[in-house]
């Protein structure tokens, strides 16, 4: 390599620049795959610099794994989650190539783990700090015993490792004393004993996720005695009731984030035990939990560091909201999404008490009216995020007020509201707006959207689902005014045609496009998108009847990043599907009611498309496809979902929707 560099010294000015400087330049490229690729293709030295610079790797295909690992020698994070490894040799490849530089590995869920493999991995990579085994449903206790030999392990994810029991967790608890993070979400065989031992042995733990474990209050005292515990997640621990926790003298002092959503058995009395002494508490989540009454709100009265609270789906009383308004902390984030019992009076009291509020979620608080919006806009002028989907009693004037007062809004969700063009014009004054959701806002037209296009240049995300008055003019205004657009949804805007897609093809960063149910769109528009938006990852063209094989070919050729596609009810046939199968990154595909599709074409496409993870098909094909093929696909880690929907629904569906809406 040195010799190569000597030869190039005379021709390449970059040889005068040290690697470190080039590394710094590469750092600025970020994670944009295209620019990195272009860089490494400049010359051999750039190629080698790039391969020495890259630290993380997320391969998609196992057959290239050996070459990739040879090319990138200093990888410290290897993500194999999308790389199905079911053959023993690819496992050996990893073991032989993963050197001691590797510090973090994320393993594929479809890997058939053997504890021998784990012990080899742990032996080879002695500095492993992070292991992510999420969704490894075949991972057993003996594997856990092998993992336990990684003495330096600090972070471990075992999400949905359903075969691991207390015994395996016990091995890990004894072996990996330096653990700072462990996630045991959905490890359904882990109970009080395993968790208790983790808390007993791993004193360094900062983050502990015990969601959906069958644990009871028995293990909580030892968990709460962890000296450094900062983040505790107890989502959906149905068996925990804290009422009997009287032996707990003091809660965890270092606790900062506590998530106890979906724990219906907790009362304010029990809550006071667990929060007792937790002075650093910043975030608290008791969504879908007990009713937020005066008593419960008083439990949290004196936490001066509290910044964020989520009460989604709780029953909220007026006195409770009043007490929240009187808290000594000044909240930054508040979510009352889907809370029943939120009234104008209560909400006004809350926002008056917390004028520093940055994020407010009042989704589906259907009782609130203009009064609430008045007090929100009066008190919380610093709001950056307001979600108010389906606040149907709020009048259109309210949105004018929001646009006038909340200039710092970055995210606004007014799905299913009475907003009109006037309101949109006012909201367009929020120049920092990046996400705007206007789904089912039937009153808005191209005029309002045009204001957004001119006023909000930083917009990255816009949802116009079923905004039936929107035409190509509006879309063009957005496409011109918002070059950073990454996501647009114009589903069921039936006036949208190819012209919209052509204007959208100028948005080079577009990643997700949903034009479901737009009959005016054809292959021509789709070709334009495929040519323009090379970063496209998600495409939904369901019920765009005029899109056929002609549209698929450019898509297959240019959209090499496409991960997810839905083209049910389109006019695509075997040819188009086979063309698509050449996209190696394709993971998720939904093909329902394609009249031109045969089982042979489907089988060929499925075989060709090696990265597939999820396929949604009509039940009809289950009989037609050979069993061996299905087995083969499943062994590659692909999941089939069989749907049985009548084709006739195509015509009636929009009608039904309109009836429902009226």
């Amino acid at each position, binding site marked *: 390599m040195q010799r190569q560099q000597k030869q190039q010294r005379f021709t390449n000015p970059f040889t005068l620049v040290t690697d470190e400087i080039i590394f710094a330049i590469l750092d600025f490229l970020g994670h944009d795959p295209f620019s990195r690729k272009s860089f490494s293709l400049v010359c051999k030295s750039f190629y080698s610099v790039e391969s020495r610079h890259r630290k993380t790797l997320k391969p998609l295909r196992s057959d290239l794994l050996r070459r990739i690992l040879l090319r990138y020698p200093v990888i410290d994070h290897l993500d194999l989650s999308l790389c199905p490894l079911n053959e023993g040799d690819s496992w050996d490849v990893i073991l032989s190539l993963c050197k001691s530089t590797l510090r973090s590995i994320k393993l594929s869920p479809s890997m058939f783990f053997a504890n021998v493999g784990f012990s080899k991995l742990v032996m080879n990579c002695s500095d492993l700090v992070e292991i992510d085994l999420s969704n490894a449903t075949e991972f057993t206790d003996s594997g856990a015993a092998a993992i336990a030999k990684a003495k330096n392990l600090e972070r471990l994810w075992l999400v949905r490792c359903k075969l691991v029991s207390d015994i395996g967790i016990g091995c890990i608890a*004894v072996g990996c004393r330096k653990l700072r993070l462990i996630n045991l979400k959905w490890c359904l065989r882990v109970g009080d004993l395993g968790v208790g031992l983790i808390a007993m042995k791993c004193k360094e733990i900062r983050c502990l996720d015990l969601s959906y474990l069958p644990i009871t209050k028995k293990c909580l005292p030892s968990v709460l005695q962890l000296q450094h515990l900062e983040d505790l997640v107890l989502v959906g621990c149905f068996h925990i009731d804290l009422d009997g926790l009287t032996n707990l003298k003091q809660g965890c002092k270092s606790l900062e984030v506590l998530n106890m959503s979906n724990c219906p058995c907790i009362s304010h009395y029990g809550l006071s035990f667990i929060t007792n002494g937790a002075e650093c508490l910043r975030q608290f989540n008791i969504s879908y939990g007990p009713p937020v009454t005066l008593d419960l709100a008083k439990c949290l009265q004196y936490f001066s560091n509290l910044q964020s609270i989520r009460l989604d789906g709780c029953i909220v009383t007026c006195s409770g909201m009043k007490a929240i308004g009187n808290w000594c902390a000044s909240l930054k984030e508040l979510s009352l999404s889907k809370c029943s019992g939120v009234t104008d009076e209560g909400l006004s009291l809350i926002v008056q008490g917390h004028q520093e509020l940055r994020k407010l979620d009042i989704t589906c608080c259907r009782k609130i009216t203009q009064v609430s919006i008045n007090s929100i806009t009066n008190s919380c002028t610093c709001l950056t995020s307001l979600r108010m989907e389906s606040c149907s009693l709020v009048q259109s004037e309210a949105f004018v007020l929001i646009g006038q007062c909340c200039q710092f809004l970055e995210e606004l969700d007014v799905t299913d509201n009475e907003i009109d063009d006037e309101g949109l014009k006012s909201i367009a004054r929020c120049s920092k707006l990046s996400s705007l959701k206007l789904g089912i806002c039937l009153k808005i037209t191209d005029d309002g959207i045009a204001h957004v296009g001119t006023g909000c240049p930083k917009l990255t995300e816009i949802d116009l689902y079923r905004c039936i008055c929107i035409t190509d003019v509006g879309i063009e205004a957005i496409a011109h005014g918002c070059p950073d657009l990454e996501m647009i949804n114009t589903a069921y805007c039936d006036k949208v045609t190819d012209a919209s897609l052509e204007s959208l093809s100028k948005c080079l960063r577009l990643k997700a496009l949903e034009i479901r149910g737009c009959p005016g769109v054809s292959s021509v528009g789709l070709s334009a998108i495929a040519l323009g938006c090379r970063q496209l990852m998600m495409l939904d063209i369901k019920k765009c009847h005029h899109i056929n094989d002609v549209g698929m070919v450019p898509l297959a050729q240019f959209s090499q990043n496409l991960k997810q596609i839905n083209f049910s009810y389109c006019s695509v046939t075997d040819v188009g599907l086979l063309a698509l199968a050449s996209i190696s990154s394709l993971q998720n595909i939904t093909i329902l009611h394609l009249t031109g599709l045969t089982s042979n074409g489907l089988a060929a496409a499925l075989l060709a498309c090696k990265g597939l993870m999820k396929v949604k098909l009509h039940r009809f094909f289950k009989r037609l496809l050979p069993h061996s093929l299905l087995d083969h696909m499943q062994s590659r880690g692909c999941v089939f979902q069989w749907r049985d929907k009548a084709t006739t629904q195509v015509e009636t569906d929009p009608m039904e929707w309109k009836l429902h809406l009226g």
Partner: protein
Amino acid sequence: MDLKDRLSVDTWTQSSSSGNELPKDQQSFTNFSLQQQQHQHKWEDPSVLDYSVRIEPAFQEFNQTSATSSSLPCNPNSQIKNLNREDCQMNEMLEPNRIQDWDPRVMLSNLSFLEQKIHQLQDLVHLIVGRRSQVLGRTNELVAQQQQLVTADLTSIIVQLITTAGTLLPSVKNTLSTASPSVGQLGQLGGVLFPSGTGMNGGGVAQSSGGSKVSDQSNQIDLTGACVIEQNNATEEHELKDEDDADEGENLPPGSYEILQLEKEEILAPHTHFCMICGKGFKRDANLRMHMRGHGDEYKTPAALAKPNKESSSEPVLIKRYSCPFAGCKRNKDHKKFQPLKTILCVKNHYKRTHCDKSYTCSRCNTKKFSVIADLKTHEKHCGKDKWLCSCGTTFSRKDKLFGHIALFQGHTPAIPLDETKGSVGPSDRGEGNGAANKVGSVGFNFSSNASSGSGVQDMMMDVKRGADEPTGFFSPLTFDPCSLVGFHEFPRPPFEDSESSFSFLVPGSCSYTRKTGGESSSNDLE
């Protein structure tokens, strides 16, 4: 009146009547009789009053016959009735004595005082007897005069006795009032227990005049009395295994309960209920009643077969606690931190477990030994299975015990059994939702069903048979695992559906999830 009672009375009368003949023995003898009376007080009332009321006709009859038959050889003395009455009086007098304080020296002095008094009384009676035999032909007048004189003397002595007795044992004054209800309870049992007296010691006692026998007998009374509790609580028997330890927390103030102590022989006696007719022994009263049917139609009446009801106690019952006869044992009443045992079964199990050889060896592992056969059977159910293994080689029958061990020692880890694929589905599954504690609970339950249903047949036989059946019957995975599996299925469902819709790449798992669980359940079925 109870036979034993009568027997003790007999010995007493014998001693009193034969006081002149056996002057040397008298001291010790009276002491014994006193001791005996301490027990006797329980019997005197009920045996007189309660028989007619509570005991079934069959037993009444039975008692009567036996009473006469036994009294005939033992007590040819015609004065027996008088003496009985006197004895009753004596008991009344003495009753307060036993309830008083237990300072041995004070007691000793009091006893010696009483001894003197009794000697005087004996002399007096001897005098009367002697005079009667001498002056048979005298007129009734003179006899009556003498009698008056003697009665006056007697009453004065008795009054003296009562006054001393008042100071003799003053510790538990309130028991004076509570004594009678407890006596009532025991009285009812007395009828039942009666046979045991004859079956075991009756013959010997009838002939005996030795002190040791008498004391032995008095203890026998205790045993039998207590056994009734056992039989009444027969259904609770399964709990008693742990009750040994369970009553640790019970803090009865000393003196608020009555302490009974059995002798070693009684604790280890295989049977406590004996047939009056053929002498066959039984562990349970119910079994005895079943057996009695064979002896005639009179035992087949519903009343005879009915379980002797507990006396509906509107009055407070004196709590009974038991002491272990083993000196130095914490359960012995002389121990500084004495902790009484709750029931007679606790006594039996405690004594066997703590102070006896472990003669039952597990046939599977050949290492574990037990002194209580029920413990062996409980162990055998688990022996070989459900081994929770530590890396240090120690095995545990319960998972929580293993984890306690690991938490305690540095560097010890749970060891994974070699047949992991099987093991992970089998035992750990079972231990999962319900925990080890539940397992023990269910074992206990099985045990209880054994115990309560051992009707008529020898328990040992039954138990052994069941022990053999057990592994397939109660503990087959078929009955247990599906439940826990159902739990698994229902529990996580919502999150998984959620993950499917929101994270497309999580999905492979969700498929394998259904596949997996299917496999799991089928493998369970096969097991």
